[in-house]
């Protein structure tokens, strides 16, 4: 029997066939909890799943054709689309040729693609005469429909294809590098400080944005606008700034900054959270944090980190036999570049395309609600392209409530349930995971060493040892609770959290591996970090004293 999945037939679980064919499907809690809403699930998220196959087939990955993806009772389950032995043999030589450009010059592949994406986004806006957030209101119904169709079937798809081909290459290159690291040095790279040193001293786009914000923040300080930022309510801050000429001047610059860098929503992977460019008060909280920093922490350490990296590179190469130096150096460079791609790409991929999706979905929701197709504008997140196409031109003549109702009911039910962690035969899990390195994006496991007698073990770490008071924060919206010098404990971090790094002296996250945001940022900001310890937010309470040893990848709870 086929289990309905918000009418998204490509996700329907076939309970007679799927576990037989795929052995086991694993619940993707990292991305799927809390449950995704249907519109995003069927558009943005679907394209990422599709694009894994696009990448697998384009690169001729020997062991996998992408992700098998099913949604059951609102939660996603994934598995590998494994190749047969004959298929693998045929694909191997082609894969070797396809992966070479990434090994040889990773940036040489990424840079033009990055530019292509930005040009695509700009063209989509400019060709329609759209600049400001509210300009979308000027589009006629048919123009809005066309924009949606372009977005949903062309722009979003292209972003996903680019995103995933780079992601797959990154996973393979870093995966190989970590294997060889273990081979050559007998250590697990994700928790090895020597490895960390090699991967540090690169600047991702995220950091550039935060730096611009810091400059703006200091400007506000220099312009004597400190007082305007005193109110807790950030909307109030904007009002205060409107009251003075200096304030207005600063606001103008701030808005220009947002036009360029504010195409990002609070949540990367949904359409229902506001974008910075839409609601300027959103980033004010970060400006407040940065205003107090006399220097930009990241820059202060940068020169030193680069030097340390260059030293580490020399040291590592010196340890190697002559016959291995050249290939190891090549692999290392590629791993370094692809490591920082992990952080660099969210700006150009996830955030930008997510903001555009939010932009379009919000306007559609507004018009549909106004015309009476749906009860409230937020209900648009329970529609799909099909229904949008049905109602975009006739508007109020079409009743979309039945679609909304049945999907909302399913989604609310999912919100309250805990999904089974897998479907099928769990013993096959290792086999499935091994056949596709990208699957382990969701499944990095702590590296346990009983002899260390630690309270938590991480899957990856940024080096350094620190003791301090813990602050457990479950979402980026609660960042204002963080005090300077505290040790942040979180489920995970993403670019939305970056600004916290100027305040904290240590970081512990439940999720994350060697390529994850907390680890990369931890390195670059010189903050000891233990990521992927699974239960940090459960075991640690705010106010407890903890000790992080990022050189070993462990956490001790001291109280």
């Amino acid at each position, binding site marked *: 029997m086929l289990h309905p999945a918000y009418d998204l037939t490509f996700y329907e679980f076939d309970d007679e066939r799927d576990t037989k064919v795929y052995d086991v499907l694993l619940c993707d809690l990292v991305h799927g909890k809390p449950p995704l809403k249907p519109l995003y699930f069927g558009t943005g998220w679907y394209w990422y799943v599709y694009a894994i196959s696009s990448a697998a087939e384009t690169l001729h990955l*020997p062991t996998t054709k992408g992700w098998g993806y099913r949604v059951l009772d609102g939660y996603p389950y994934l598995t590998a689309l494994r190749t047969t032995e004959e298929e693998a043999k045929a694909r191997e030589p082609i894969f070797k040729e396809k992966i070479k450009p990434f090994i040889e010059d990773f940036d040489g592949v990424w840079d033009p693609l990055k530019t292509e994406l930005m040009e695509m986004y700009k063209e989509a806006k400019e060709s329609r005469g759209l600049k400001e957030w509210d300009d979308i209101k000027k589009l006629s119904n048919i123009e809005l429909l066309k924009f949606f169709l372009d977005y949903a079937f062309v722009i979003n798809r292209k972003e996903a294809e680019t995103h995933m081909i780079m992601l797959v290459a990154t996973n*393979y290159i870093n995966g190989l590098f970590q294997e060889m690291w273990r081979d050559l040095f007998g250590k697990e790279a994700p928790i090895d400080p020597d490895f960390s040193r090699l991967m540090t001293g690169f600047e991702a786009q995220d950091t550039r944005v935060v730096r611009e914000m810091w400059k703006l923040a200091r400007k506000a300080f220099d312009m004597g606008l400190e007082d305007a930022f005193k109110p807790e309510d950030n909307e109030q801050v904007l009002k205060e700034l409107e009251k003075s000429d200096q304030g207005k001047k600063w606001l103008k610059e701030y808005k220009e900054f947002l036009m360029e860098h504010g195409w990002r929503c609070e949540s990367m992977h949904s359409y229902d959270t506001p974008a910075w460019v839409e609601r300027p008060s959103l980033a004010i909280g970060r400006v407040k944090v940065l205003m107090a920093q006399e220097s930009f922490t990241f820059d202060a350490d940068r020169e030193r980190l680069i030097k340390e990296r260059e030293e580490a590179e020399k040291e590592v190469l010196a340890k190697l036999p002559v*016959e291995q130096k050249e290939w190891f150096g*090549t692999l290392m460079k590629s791993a370094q570049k692809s490591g920082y791609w992990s952080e660099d790409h969210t700006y150009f991929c996830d955030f930008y395309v997510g903001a555009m999706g939010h932009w379009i979905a919000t306007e559609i929701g507004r018009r549909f609600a106004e015309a009476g197709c749906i009860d409230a504008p937020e209900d648009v997140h329970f529609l799909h392209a099909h229904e949008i196409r049905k109602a975009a031109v006739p508007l109020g003549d079409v009743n979309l409530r039945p679609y909304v109702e049945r999907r909302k009911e399913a989604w609310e039910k999912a919100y309250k349930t805990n999904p089974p962690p897998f479907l099928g035969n769990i013993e096959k899990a290792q086999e499935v995971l091994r056949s596709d390195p990208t699957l382990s994006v969701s499944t990095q496991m702590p590296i346990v060493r009983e002899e260390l007698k630690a309270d938590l073990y991480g899957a990856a770490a940024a080096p350094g040892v620190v003791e301090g008071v813990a602050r457990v924060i479950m979402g980026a919206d609660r960042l204002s609770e963080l005090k300077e010098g505290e040790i942040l404990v979180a489920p995970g971090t993403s670019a939305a959290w970056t600004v916290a790094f100027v305040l904290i002296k240590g970081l512990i996250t439940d999720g994350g591996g060697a390529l994850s945001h907390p680890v990369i940022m931890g390195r670059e900001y010189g903050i000891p970090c233990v990521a992927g310890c699974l239960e940090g937010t459960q075991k640690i309470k705010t106010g407890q004293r903890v000790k992080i040893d990022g050189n070993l990848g462990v956490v001790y709870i001291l109280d």
Partner: protein
Amino acid sequence: MTALWILEFEKINQESVNVTGTKCANLGELMRIGMPVPPGFVVTAQAFDFFLNETGADEEMNKVLKAFEEAPKSIEEYETLSRTLSQIITCNDVPKELKETISQAYNALSAECKMEEVPVAVRSSGCAEDLPTAAFAGQYESYLNVIGAHDLLDKVRDCWASLFTSRAISYRMRNNLPIMDKLMGVIVQKVVNSRSAGVAFTALPSTGNITWVMLEGNWGTAESVVQGFVTPDRYYIHKESLRIEEKNISQKLKQHVIAETGTREEDVPEEKQSEPCFSDEEATKIADMAKHVESHYGTPQDIEWAIEADLPYPDNIFLVQTRPITTLKKKSAVDQVADLMLTRFVKR
């Protein structure tokens, strides 16, 4: 006429190939650019030609080949042809004038070396050998530690005959060359009483990387290294700075030593098995010489060297052969990583 049958090394250079064969031309060239080469002379290709004509061997061999019009199909047919042709050479006496000329040259060499009968290496030097494109390596015969004119003449004739081993014949056939080949010089060179010997590559055979000189050596003569009987000591020397980057000392259990005549295999005395067979300064000096040879030829070289037991450093180092490296895979670092991607990651 007789002057063209013998040429001393001093008179030989790159251009001499058609007279002396490639291996010998390279030896002369090495000497010309100031490398330490043991003294000697070559019995020219023209001498061989004279032998073939004067004895009627030429005519006889052509008759045999004509009868053998069809390409040999089986190993037995190669063997038979080879045996027949070789025997035509070895069964004929070297004509008197040539015999005398060769003996005279040998005596002169012995005098130069202040010995009554100098022990010599007798080496075939073909003309299509040791070219950058054709890997004729090891096709023809060499004899180490030959003593006395009588033995020398026999070995010279054996070298000529080695042009017609089944291996050599089949090689020429596979490369569309005529079976009848008269272009061979025979090198006659004072033997180095090798304390240790080996090879030097000025590019890493596995990748074509030219940053390093790779040195391999063993106690005794180079045979054990060249023919791969033992795992030699292997050093990697940074070409530009001549810094010894890496030393791999192996357990050297066997060596080939100079015997009363010829060589024989011997055990390496226990105390020397784990000892490096060359000193750091010897290694550096050989690498430096190799660097200059490569620079002169403009292409990576495979060089055979030997260290004389009876002389002090630095006069104890000799180069006895050089040729372009033919098996450079030129596998780039990117290729290697792509290979590892499959073998060590995808298939892990």
